[in-house]
């Protein structure tokens, strides 16, 4: 087999590349393979691979399958419409996350796996988030304690959960 690049030398290198889940295969001669290695890497740096282009690509794909109504949807706060977002890959304001939540949800899943924030919470105004997190952690522990038949620990946890829930009501 001849090299797919130069079509002069015998192809003796088989290159399989998986980039963002997309698989490409090539049969190259040794010389071209080496050159390609460098070419590909430079390509990574200079825009052929660009996360925003990629994102815009995914979104315009999804746009095709959206009902007409949501294609024309616009954010009441900043005026950003879905078409513009799909083209540019950028939202206009914080409220866009609410406006386009139905369209964003599958996209966020695809990018991040689980689109539920873990980690740092803002020190201001995050009290309710903190409490919610705390509760769900306690409930998880309670379930585990019951399964492992650690009933004393389970009783402690049950009381703790009650206290936190009461605080929330107040």
């Amino acid at each position, binding site marked *: 087999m001849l090299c797919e690049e130069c079509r002069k030398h015998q192809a003796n290198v088989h290159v399989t590349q998986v980039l963002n889940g997309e698989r490409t295969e090539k049969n190259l001669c040794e010389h071209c393979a080496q050159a390609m*290695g460098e070419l590909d*890497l430079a390509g990574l740096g200079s825009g052929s691979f660009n996360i925003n282009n990629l994102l815009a690509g995914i979104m315009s794909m999804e746009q095709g399958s959206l009902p007409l109504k949501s294609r024309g949807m616009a954010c009441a706060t*900043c005026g950003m419409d879905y078409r513009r977002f799909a083209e540019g*890959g*950028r939202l206009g304001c914080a409220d866009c*996350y609410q406006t386009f939540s139905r369209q964003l949800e599958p996209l*966020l899943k695809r*990018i991040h796996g689980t689109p539920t924030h873990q*980690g*740092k919470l803002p020190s201001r105004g995050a009290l309710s988030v903190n409490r919610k997190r705390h509760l769900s952690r306690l409930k998880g522990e309670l379930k585990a304690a019951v399964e492992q038949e650690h009933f004393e620990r389970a009783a402690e946890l049950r009381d703790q959960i009650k206290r936190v829930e009461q605080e929330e009501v107040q």
Partner: protein
Amino acid sequence: MDCRAKWVAGGEASDPIVISSRVRLARNLKGIPFPGAMSSKEGSEVLSRVAKLLEQKAPHGYEVFYMAKMPQVERLALVEEHLISYDLANKTEGAVAISRDGATSVMLNEEDHLRIQALLPGLSLEEAWQTANSCDDLLEAELDFAFHEDYGYLTACPTNVGTGMRASVMLHLPALVESRQIGRLLAAIGQFGLMARGLYGEGTEAKGSVFQISNQVTCGIAEEEIVRNLKAVVEQIKAQEQAHLQKMVAAQRLKIEDRVYRALGLLTNARVLDSSEAMVLLSELRLGVSAGLLSLPVGVLSELLVLVQPGVLQTVNKVNLDALERDIKRGEIVRRRLLEVLGREKQ
């Protein structure tokens, strides 16, 4: 004539493979549209609110630079020192606050209102996270950031939502490039939720074998875990690079030694040195240090990596130079700095 950024300043770096570590946090002010959709009045409001706060509150103090007031060559120098992005350099509403120690820079009105970044020499991701986090704490005490119960910190691009955190390391991997392992390795990185790109690439080649590896996923994973994952993968890559380097040296020591010392000969004698030649030769010296064939402080090599860039070259030396004049000046700087440290090494 010195750089401002801590990852190069003072030649403190000591790791020949991991050049630098960076943690960046994206934040937006509540109630103001993201930079892409805000009015210029809103842009000025972001600048005045955040810049003032940083200048007054920060323990080390920050110096604020406004893009609109800076000559192009100085903006370019900040890009080359990795203190700002190329995008910010071209934004008239943009500004950057840089801490006096050069470790933290806060970009204002880039893609998000704030991009807090900490950049340190070597593999120091935990420290970079702590540095960026404490800057975030400081700002958060006074500012309300856009935050969503489920999605976390809200950002202009959904790829940054959640922690808003991008942690990255810059790696020098010549042995993996030469043994043609690099392509396979960079492709495998995707499976760990990481991404890689060549740095200093121009046209057809990735110059100087420098790569950047960063986390791709920002939501659903805590900051400390992002740091842990990246660090674990980087340590593996570092070990791979070392192993391949040792194999190379064992197989052809004389040839590699010859390459390294030829590079040193050129760099300590050349009268006209363009930046891509400088990058390639500096990479050879770094390889020599990494392989234990050459005794030179790594910090000087990191510093030169930045000092040879056209923007820094002109800013640090306070002159405007045409291409040939730059190549002459570059040769002079590299020669002088290397001879100086070599003299010290001999004593």
